[in-house]
């Protein structure tokens, strides 16, 4: 199955195929100008790669099917490209092949209100989806930060700050229309079907969630939508140590308090946020919590219960509020965290790590990571979705500094191995893409990696779908 791609062979095959591409999608949708192709050469990761040889912009699933069939027949690699907001190089055309831009596959979101289900096309982004359905009182909760295309979020199995209550993409995708490498179009749960549960057949929907374009192109996603919370409130609490903060989180979960968001900022991040947003928070490990409920009493009760737990873990300050203004103020440090971290260093760009560990190991892993940063004198802050055991280190770096780049890569490598040693994963939400393939063997084990290849070979025997990503070499 392993094809040896030479850039020249790919280039030649593409040049020969241009007239046929033009016949399928029309001349205007076959982009060969260098300035256009360069726009599709990178995502939000730090990898540098060549631009694709051509960018194709199909407008419907039939065109996608014909394009893939053609590329499959000729062994031309294809990389699907949504909004280019990925963080791991997943949508980069590292072999300079075909970039299949999905953003012209348009269509209004189709909402089935009483079924709590909405279907979207690839051009719909997260914010556009919520805008389109806001009149119904429903919302799509997965919020990874960027205004990513929803189908792209499916491909990377995205997550966000309220996963603790509403789930990640895995829990919120009911059905997918996908196009396989040979042009076959199928619906993972059957066309138009959206029962809330089913025992029929293999779970293909979740196979494609997180497949990062290696198994097919997603051309429509049917999603769960949820009622917007009637009442909200927020709380912020600082602690004397990371361990106290983490233990608080465990106890909150043990008490079954259905927090909507529970986020952690370490002292370094608090210091950065104070400077950036002119705040006066205590420079200590701090939890940021949000409560959702159907009555004011419900959120007030949740807040009281969490306050008690915090205080039993030597909380230093506890503040809470329910008005939109107070909530925004309480969460300001968390909202601006990324930019506050970058502001610590003039001219810096952000490098963000992403690991996830069992919650019982979280405090230790965060403490060891902090010790690692300090020992190697690396500037970085810790921001975590602690309810899930997932945390990010934000490293403001000067991109041009090669030795610093190496230092950070080494730190990131130690961090992943630390997470794996703690029974965790090399990526909580950003995906494997290019850079984390090397950890999958250790994380999943040889047999599981072999199974990945078996499945890949069955769906994409010519290995044209995003080759060089996600799967480690056999």
């Amino acid at each position, binding site marked *: 199955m392993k094809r040896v791609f030479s850039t020249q062979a790919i280039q030649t095959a593409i040049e020969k195929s241009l007239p046929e591409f033009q016949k399928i999608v029309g001349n205007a949708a076959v982009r060969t100008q260098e300035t256009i192709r360069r726009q599709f050469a990178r995502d939000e990761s730090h990898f540098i790669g060549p631009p694709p040889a051509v960018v194709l912009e199909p407008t419907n699933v039939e065109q996608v099917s014909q394009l893939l069939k053609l590329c499959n027949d000729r062994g031309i690699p294809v990389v699907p490209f949504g909004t280019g907001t990925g963080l791991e190089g997943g949508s980069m055309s590292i072999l300079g092949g075909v970039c299949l831009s999905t953003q012209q596959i348009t269509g209004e979101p189709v909402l089935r209100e009483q079924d709590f289900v909405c279907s979207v096309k690839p051009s719909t982004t997260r914010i556009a989806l919520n805008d389109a359905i*806001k009149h*119904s*009182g429903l919302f799509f909760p997965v919020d990874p930060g960027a205004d990513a295309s929803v189908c792209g979020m499916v491909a990377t199995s995205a997550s966000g700050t309220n996963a603790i209550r509403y789930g990640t993409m895995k829990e919120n995708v009911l059905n997918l229309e996908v196009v396989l490498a040979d042009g076959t179009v199928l619906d993972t749960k059957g066309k138009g079907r959206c029962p809330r549960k089913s025992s029929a057949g293999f779970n293909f929907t979740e196979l494609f969630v997180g497949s990062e374009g290696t198994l097919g192109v997603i051309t429509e996603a049917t999603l769960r939508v949820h009622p*917007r919370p*009637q009442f909200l409130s927020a709380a912020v609490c600082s602690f004397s140590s990371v361990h106290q903060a983490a233990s608080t989180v465990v106890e909150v979960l043990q008490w079954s308090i259905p927090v909507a968001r529970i986020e952690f900022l370490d002292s370094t991040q608090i210091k950065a946020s104070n400077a950036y947003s002119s705040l006066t928070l205590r420079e200590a490990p701090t939890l940021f919590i949000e409560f959702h409920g159907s009555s004011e009493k419900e959120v007030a009760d949740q807040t009281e219960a969490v306050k008690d737990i915090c205080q039993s873990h030597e909380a230093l300050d506890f503040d809470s509020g329910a008005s*939109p203004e107070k909530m925004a103020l309480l969460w300001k440090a968390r909202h601006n965290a990324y930019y506050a971290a970058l502001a610590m260093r003039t001219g810096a760009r952000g490098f963000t790590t992403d690991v996830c560990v069992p919650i019982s190991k979280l405090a230790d892993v965060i403490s060891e990571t902090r010790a690692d940063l300090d020992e190697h004198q690396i500037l970085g802050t810790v921001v975590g979705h602690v309810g899930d055991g997932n945390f990010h280190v934000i490293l403001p770096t000067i991109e041009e500094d090669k030795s610093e780049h190496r230092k950070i890569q080494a730190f990131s490598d130690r961090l992943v191995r630390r997470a794996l040693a703690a029974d965790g994963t090399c990526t909580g939400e950003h995906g494997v893409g290019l850079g984390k393939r090397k950890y999958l063997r250790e994380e999943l084990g040889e047999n599981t990696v072999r199974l990945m290849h078996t499945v890949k070979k069955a769906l994409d025997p010519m290995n044209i779908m995003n080759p060089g990503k996600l799967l480690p070499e056999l």
Partner: protein
Amino acid sequence: MKILVGVKRVVDYAVKIRVKPDRSGVVTEGVQHSMNPFDEIALEEAVKLKEKKLATEVVAFSLGGPKSQEVLRTALAKGADKAIHVQVSDEEASKLESFHVAKTLKKIVESEKFDAVFLGKQAIDDDSSQTAPILAGLLDWPQALYASKVEEGGDGHMKVKIPFVLSADLRLNEPRYATLPNIMKAKKKPLKAIPIKDLGVDIKPQTETIEVTEPPVRQAGGFVEDVAGLVAKLKEKGFVKA
């Protein structure tokens, strides 16, 4: 203080507008519609005043075809107590002008005795921005247009005496979402429908639309090789002195 809030059903801001082939207007059939965003802001401000106990009642109003009721139900779900729908046919609705809306609002204000009228500063379909000032003129009420903050008392800001007309600007507030329980409760809130002729308002159009066209297609630009080439082109086209 009883507040009347005008809300208009318009083509949703995210829709790509297309001109009808006969150039008589824009395509509205089968296109997503929603409450005019500035009206959402006006409504939010009125509801906030009620929550602060500075207003006693918030009533939503719309002059439009049958589907305007959807927007009124949304207003009820977002905190309005009652709704008034002055009905016209879809055909009549397409020819309504700010003057007609203002005249209709005046009738409602006088018959139901409101103390203030909150409107969006303009509708995003016609961008007329006329209804609020025309209404203020007809009622001979003070007008607070493009309001970006509403407070009790305060110095350095314009003070208005009740009764008054207010038009809401973008920064006035962040409108709340309608939640499902409120949407369900809204179905039971009173919505009064009044055919336009019962109000005795003349809605004869004062303007005639002759043609609606898209802006001219943008001409393709040219590429230049380098800065020297750019400067030469600028001189050639007379943008820079040769």
